[in-house]
Structure formats: structure tokens, C-alpha cells
């Protein structure tokens, strides 16, 4: 494991994040409200139409977002307050980026093969394990996963070319 990351400089301020999320909420609310108005958001003869509820949900969401944005803009002190430091962000990305690759690779490669690679990658990057351990643990974990889901609970998980080659697909 590498030395702990001591970079405490702020990557993003709390204030910026608060404002960005508030703007996203406003936009999301507006989107919901407009699409609901399209399918009918009035009060029909027999109660509300299909878009009635989502329309007001969207309107309220936009309003709440606007008020949050307004109050956070006034709180200038929060500009100095950090949302996440650079060191923390680096740690998070070291986990998140491989995880994203894993998630994207499930469809073409199947879940078992990607899982084994995913664990092996982490063991190689973050720990100093003997090479045989870095091979044994991923394969062992995946074998347990296979037995539990495919054999015991009979819940098939996505498979790829490797399983087809081994005749397990």
C-alpha cells in the first residue's frame, strides 16, 4: 500500500457543489414538470390526470432547488469550506475508475471473468501479495460466487465468452 495521501488542498469547495446540485435539481424539476404537463396535468372529471402528481413534484423540486441555490449563494463563508480534498478525491478515483471499467465490462465479458480480473487488479495495485495469492483469491472468490448463485440458488448471472468456452454457459 502506498503512503497515505496527505494532500489536504481542496479539490472542490462545498459551496460550488451545493450550487451545482441545486442547479441540477432545478433542471430536473423543470424536466419532470414539462413532460407531465405534456400528458395532462389538470384535474379531470374523475380526479387528477396522469401528469397531475408528477407535475407538482417537478414544480416543488425546482422551487426547493432555487431556494437552496439562493441561500447557498449568500453564504460566502462556505466558499472556503472543502467538499472533498485532493488527496481524498485521488483515493476515491482509485476505486471508482476501476469499478466503472468493471461495470462496463460485465455486458461483453460476463460477470464471473470481470469479477476475477477486478479483484486481481486491486490486489496487484494496492497490496503486496505473492503472485500465487493474487491468482488464487480472485479465482476462489469467483468459484464461491458461481456455486452460490448458479448451483445453490439457481440464479443465473451474466456470462461471457470464457464461460461458453469452458462449457458452463
Amino acid at each position, binding site marked *: *500500500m502506498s503512503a497515505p495521501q496527505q494532500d489536504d488542498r481542496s479539490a472542490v469547495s462545498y459551496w460550488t457543489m451545493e450550487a451545482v446540485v441545486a442547479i441540477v435539481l432545478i433542471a430536473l424539476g423543470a424536466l419532470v414538470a414539462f*413532460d407531465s404537463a405534456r400528458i395532462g396535468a389538470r384535474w379531470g372529471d374523475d380526479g387528477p390526470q*396522469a401528469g397531475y402528481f408528477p407535475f407538482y413534484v417537478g414544480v416543488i423540486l425546482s422551487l426547493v432547488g432555487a431556494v437552496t441555490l439562493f441561500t447557498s449563494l449568500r453564504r460566502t463563508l462556505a466558499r472556503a469550506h472543502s467538499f472533498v480534498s485532493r488527496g481524498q478525491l485521488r483515493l476515491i478515483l482509485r476505486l471508482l475508475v476501476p469499478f466503472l471499467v468493471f461495470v462496463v465490462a460485465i455486458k461483453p465479458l460476463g460477470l464471473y471473468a470481470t469479477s476475477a480480473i477486478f479483484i486481481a487488479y486491486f490486489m496487484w495495485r494496492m497490496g503486496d*501479495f505473492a503472485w500465487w495469492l493474487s491468482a488464487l483469491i480472485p479465482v476462489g472468490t469467483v468459484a464461491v460466487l458461481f456455486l452460490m448463485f448458479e448451483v445453490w*440458488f439457481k440464479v443465473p448471472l451474466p456470462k461471457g465468452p470464457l464461460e461458453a468456452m469452458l462449457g458452463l454457459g
Partner: protein
Amino acid sequence: MEQFAALAQGFAVAASPENFVLMLVGILLGVIIGVLPGLGGANGIAILLPLTFSMNPTSAIIMLSCIYWGALFGGAITSILFNIPGEPWSVATTFDGYPLAQQGRAGTALTAAFTASFVGALLAVLLITFMAPLVASFALRFGPPEFFSVYLLTFCAFIGMNRGAALKTVASMMIGFGLAAVGLDTVTGQLRLTFGFTEMLKGFDFLIAVIGLFGIGEILLTIEEGLSFRGSKARLSLRVVFETWRELPRYWLSSLRSAGVGCLMGIVPGGATPASFMAYGVAKRFSPDAEQFGKGQVEGVVAPETAAHAAGTTALLPMMALGVPGSPTAAVLLGGLLIWGLQPGPLLFVEQKDFVWGLIASMYLGNLTGLLVVLSGVPLFAAILRIPFAIIAPVILIICAVGAYTVHNSVFDIYLMFAFGIVGYVFKKLNYPLAPLVLALVLGDRAEDSFRQSMLLSQGSLGIFFGSGIAGTLTTLAIVLLVWPLLGSMRTRSRRAATT
């Protein structure tokens, strides 16, 4: 005393060999889930729920609720030994639990925590035992307007109780409602908010949201603190256990108060997390040595643990009786109920006696088993956190992905889970509460349906929500709870104006 006959019948169901094994498996899994960061009661159960689809509902709920008890117990282990709350409701346990462990009294703290959890749960189950027949007695008086007013009360209570962040609670809730509305409208058959994407037709499943928000989000928060866990040694000898048990009766009043706080917060949808903080605060306030709190006071471990377990347990009562979950975990169990083909509501207590009383009996047995399991297995469970982070982190992420996939056998859900994970992380850091989002996502459609059914009954008049005694009382209560924080802030504002 009809409940005793029903309870005896329930014990017969819960103590069958098959159910007992499931109970044990549930407790063990639950403790492991509770110990691991990123896997908690709510998303742990969400991940395992698809595996129970083919089981008999009573066995399934016994196993899943035991996972919940196990997770409640397990959260305390990491809080005390590692100063890492494995669960949000055990944050308050770290305040005094970790200092105790640093003083070499980890055994005392653990025993106190486990015993307090057990006592809290026991008091809560006793309450449920005596209230369940009461619930059944007004079963037939519940129609759509009554159900809608219960939902309304739930949502208003959430906004009213989060005084600090009422706006963010509303935002979180509206996102939940919005997500719940996506897909086919059940009343008119129109498509809502799908924007032409076929993946959106079936809507958002709350299980995916729970796994992403609570699972992935939590892991990202944990990893910020570094890539390893450091903790105290875990040893628990029989002598320490008995010594602690001799000391504990001293805190009986504090335990009772905490259990009271917990039961209340479980029934009105507050959940275990606020209950534990509140009980800690109350205990500190009434304690003669309040200044010792935070430095390793046994009472500071007893109070939050009792309350968290009491709240976690009582949260199941409104879940079964009204279909209103008192906590995110109860919401997941509610989802299970619907999937197993059971309709929650007062009628459940009349029509599915075996299910309801089997569950209640399993609460007694499960918590006793849990207490014994954790007392004897502390070193084993603590060892889990000594597995190198490079192995445990990817394994947890894989389990989350598998859990998301198995809900609908859809890879698209794994992508959704990833997105929810990022949202969960950002929201947690910006103090947007996540529980209202999950609750609104679960109850959104049901609340809307009951509203529209009521409108059909009354031909469009809102007066129907005041038409019956039950509905009128609940609706009024809901409105009072909603405007309560507004009144509070107006009062402080006027007071501030008066002083300046």
C-alpha cells in the same frame, strides 16, 4: 388474552428446524453485513431479497428480519473496536464505545452494547405483541382515504422532524416521488417520464436505489478516510461478560428511557439512526456525571444501542400494519412482502396470522440467538476487518453489482446502481437525507393510487380525507407536523427580533 395463543402458535412456526436454521444463517450473515462498511441492513437485505423469491414467505421474512437484527448487533462491533460505524445507527455508539476500547475495556463496552441491544429489542417486541391485536381490530375500517392519510402523515412527519434540513428533506422526497412516477401509469395506462427510452418503461426499482445510495455511496465515504482499518484487540472472556452484566442494572432508568425514545421513533417513521442520537442526548442530559460522556462511559453505549434496536424492531409494526415502513430497512422488507404476494395492511393481521405471529415469535428467538452468537463470536467477526482492504473492497463492490443485477436480471440496473452510488455520496456530503428518497420511491405509487381511488369515491372532493374519524385525525396530525418547523422558525425569528 388472544395474543398469547397466537404467539404460542407463532413460536411453533418460528422454532421449526428449517426456520431455526434460516434464523441462524440470517443472524450470521447480518453480523457480517453489519461489520463490513458499505454493506448494511437496508442494502444487505435488498441484495439477498431476490434469493428468497421462491421461498415460503414466513421463512423468507424470518431470515431477512434476522439479517436485520444481526446487522444491528454487528454495527456495534466495528464502532467500539475500530471507531468505524458499520451502520449509521451505531455512530452514537462510537462516542463512548471507542474510548472504552482504548482504555482496554473493549469487552465491557461490547457486552454492554450487545445486552442493551437485546433489552431494547425485547421491550419493543413486547410492545408489538400487545399492539398487534389492536391493529387487527380496526382492520376493516381502512379504505383508500385512510391509507392516503397514513402516507401523508408519514411524509409530513419526515419533513417536520428534520428541522435542520427541511428543504433538503423535501428535495430528497420529491426526487423519490419523481422516480416512482416513471413508467406506466397504473390508472390511465399512459407512459410517464420515459422520454422514449424502453429501459424506463418498467420504472425505477427502489432496491437498485437502495443498493447504490447506501452501498456504493457508503464505500466511497469510507475510502476517503484511507485504505485500511486500525482497531483494538477483541477479547471477550466470560468473566468480563458477567462483571458487565452485574454493572448494567444500574442503568435501568436510562435503558427504559432509551427504549421509549426508540419505540416512538420506530413507529413514527424516524428510524434507528435519529433514535440512537436522541437517546444518547437524553441519557447525557439526565446523567449525574454528564461531563464523563464521550470519555468512555458505559451508559453512553447502553443508551444509543437500546434505542437503535428498539426503533429497528418497532419499525416493522407500521410496516406490516399500515404498509408504511418506519426505516429504509423496513421499506426493503415491505418490498419483499409485496413480491411474496402479501398485501401489507391491517387485514394481514387477520388473514395471515401464521406469517405475522411467526415473525413476532422469531423476533424473540432471533434476538436471543443473536445475543449468544455475537457474544461468542466477537474475535471472529472482528477478524473480518483484518482482511486486507485490497481484497474486501472489490468483493463488496462485486456483491453490490450482483445484488443489483438479480433484482430483474438486467445489466442496465448495474449502471443505474453506479449512478445512484455517486448521487448517494454527493447527497450524504451535502446533508441531503437519503431515507426520504427511498421512502418516497417505495410509497409514491401507492400514495398516488390511494389518492386517486379516494377521488373516484368522492367524485373529486378533498373533503373525503376528513370524512371518517381515522382519516380526519391522521390528516389533521399530518398538517400539524408539516407546519411545526415553520412555526418553530417563526418563533425563533420573532424572539431574535425582540432581543435586537
